[in-house]
């Protein structure tokens, strides 16, 4: 009885979401059928559009994974955006500094660098939480803005491309480029990095003693304390990995897509990642699925705008609405879910 009630409530959320979408489409004055058709064809209509979904999913998988790992250990990472940018700074700095390295060395090196930079950016709030109990929600949020500020300064000063008047770096050396894995698309090897990370994280968090500790600390720190598991060490560990993954996302975006450092690398991936992790129930497979789903939502809404005149902001609305409905699920569907 309880299981079917739960299923029905999620179905109810889907129905409500769909109804709201229809309402919004009608408000624009577009034809509902045409809108949905253009949404779907925007995703599946061509080889290229499907590849675009995966391009957009790549950073979401990585940052979503990072947020998920943090959440599993009780570390609420709002700072994936800033950590992503720190990763981007890392790859730019390393690539220009060691510009003669061959790709085979450069790529792993910059990924490592991005992990370190992103990890450090996250472990500082982690330390503040573990040692002093300062809420990581506020600190990671503020570190986002500091990171963005640093990027802004760098692309106007030390890393600025002298041949351009715009605030961005020069093109990165060829060695620091992730190859395109699907010709005539933008789909780059970052997707492979993301998927490999998914496997590694799954192994780490569910199959190793360290991962076990992180999960246990997130569920019952007191019992861990009584069993000799160090809560302090594990908060540091999880915040480091969380930020490191977001840093890798920044590396992939720069080396795979933009090939230079600029301010608009991320249209809020770090924040969307929080939704990705929530919808994916903080599990690696769930993260991949929800990342693909949200990427599809965004690509589809581009199609809806092109062919049916529905503004792309509808995707933000839908994302927000879905999360709000999930948060309110137990209250809205109370009668379906009470047992006895």
């Amino acid at each position, binding site marked *: 009885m309880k299981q079917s009630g739960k299923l029905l409530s999620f179905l109810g959320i889907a129905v409500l979401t769909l109804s709201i979408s229809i309402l919004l489409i009608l408000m624009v004055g577009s034809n509902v059928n045409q809108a949905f058709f253009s949404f779907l064809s925007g995703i599946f209509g061509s080889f290229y559009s499907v590849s675009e979904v995966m391009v957009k999913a790549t950073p979401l998988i990585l940052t979503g994974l990072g947020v998920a790992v943090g959440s599993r250990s009780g570390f609420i990472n709002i700072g994936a955006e800033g950590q992503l940018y720190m990763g981007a700074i890392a790859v730019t700095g390393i690539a220009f500094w060691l510009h003669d390295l061959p790709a085979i060395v450069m790529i792993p090196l910059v990924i490592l660098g991005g992990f370190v930079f992103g990890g450090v950016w996250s472990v500082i709030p982690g330390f503040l939480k573990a040692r002093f109990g300062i809420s990581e929600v506020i600190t990671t949020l503020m570190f986002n803005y*500091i990171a963005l*500020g640093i990027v802004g*300064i760098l692309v106007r000063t030390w890393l600025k491309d002298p041949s351009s008047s715009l605030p961005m770096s020069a093109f990165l050396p060829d060695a620091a480029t992730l190859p395109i894995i699907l010709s005539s698309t933008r789909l780059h090897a970052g997707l492979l990095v993301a998927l490999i990370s998914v496997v590694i994280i799954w192994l780490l968090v569910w199959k190793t003693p360290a991962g076990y500790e992180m999960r246990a600390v997130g569920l019952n720190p007191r019992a861990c304390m009584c069993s000799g598991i160090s809560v302090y060490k594990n908060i540091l560990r999880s915040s480091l990995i969380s930020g490191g993954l977001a840093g890798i996302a920044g590396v992939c975006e720069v080396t795979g897509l933009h090939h230079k450092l600029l301010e608009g690398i991320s249209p809020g991936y770090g924040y969307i990642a929080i939704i990705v992790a929530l919808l994916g129930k903080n599990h690696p497979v769930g993260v991949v699925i929800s990342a693909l789903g949200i990427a599809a939502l965004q690509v589809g809404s581009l199609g809806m705008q092109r062919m049916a005149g529905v503004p792309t902001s509808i995707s*933000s609305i839908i*994302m927000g609405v879905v*999360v709000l409905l999930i948060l*309110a699920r*137990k209250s809205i569907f109370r009668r379906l879910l009470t047992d006895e």
Partner: protein
Amino acid sequence: MDSGFIALVTIYLIDSVRMATPLILAGLGEAVSEKAGILNIGVEAIMLSGAFFSFIVSFFTGNLYLGLLAGIAGGIFVSMIHGVLSIHCKANQTIAGLALNFMVMGLTSFLFLIVFGQTTTLPSCSVFSEVKIPLLWHIPIIGPALFNQNLFVYIALISIVLTAFFFYKTEWGVNLHAVGEHPQAANSAGLNVFAIRYFACFVNGVLGGLGGASITLGQLGFFMENVTSGRGYIALVAVILGRRNPIGILAAAMVIGFSQALQYNFQTLGFPIPTQVFSMFPYVVAVIVLFLSIGKSIDPSALGVPFERNKR
């Protein structure tokens, strides 16, 4: 003293006050909410909603005051959603706030496009003009800064006084404090914890909506996508820097306003210092303040924790 210098200081002060006003309003609202134990990351959404609705109504009615009321309504709309989720649904307040930010960002942009379509020139409305307070505005330096400003500035300044009075001189303020610190004790003393928290969310909406309206109707005279551009988050910083104290928030908002005024003026002056230094400034200061306050617990003990009445 060099009169040129005085003029410079005066200009910066005027600009700082103007920049600080949205932060003061939104910050005060958030402070009330946090005092009651509700952490609202969605201040950005409240402000954006206030900005949007105040603009739309002003534009179509030509009446700025109606627009102001609409801005307040817009703010309340968002804050009460957050309230229901936090208090009734006992949801994670951080995620609720973030989701609201996404939704309202999309919604305001969406509605704007529906109403105005794709335009090259931004539709604009008039702006509240400055009102000189007789006599007081003649005071050197602070006169023009505090007494020759638009309505929103005056509302903000009065709100500071009212909020401080409310917090520290009334029994209502004590009740609010109790609810945020030790809701069980408040409950056993006969206070209605839920009602007080909903009230706090309401005030958060009113002041946050005013904060948003002050951007469109007080400064810009137009609305565009993401017109608040992070000011809601900066308001959160002001609340932390100001330790949830109205006077502290005023000080923090002034400091931030000053750095924004510097940023603006440096840009026009063409100095080589990137403006990002100034935009980062409030956040760096906030982190330092957090470091310095280590050991002293400054958060209400029940902040972010849903209240469950103990039943048997």
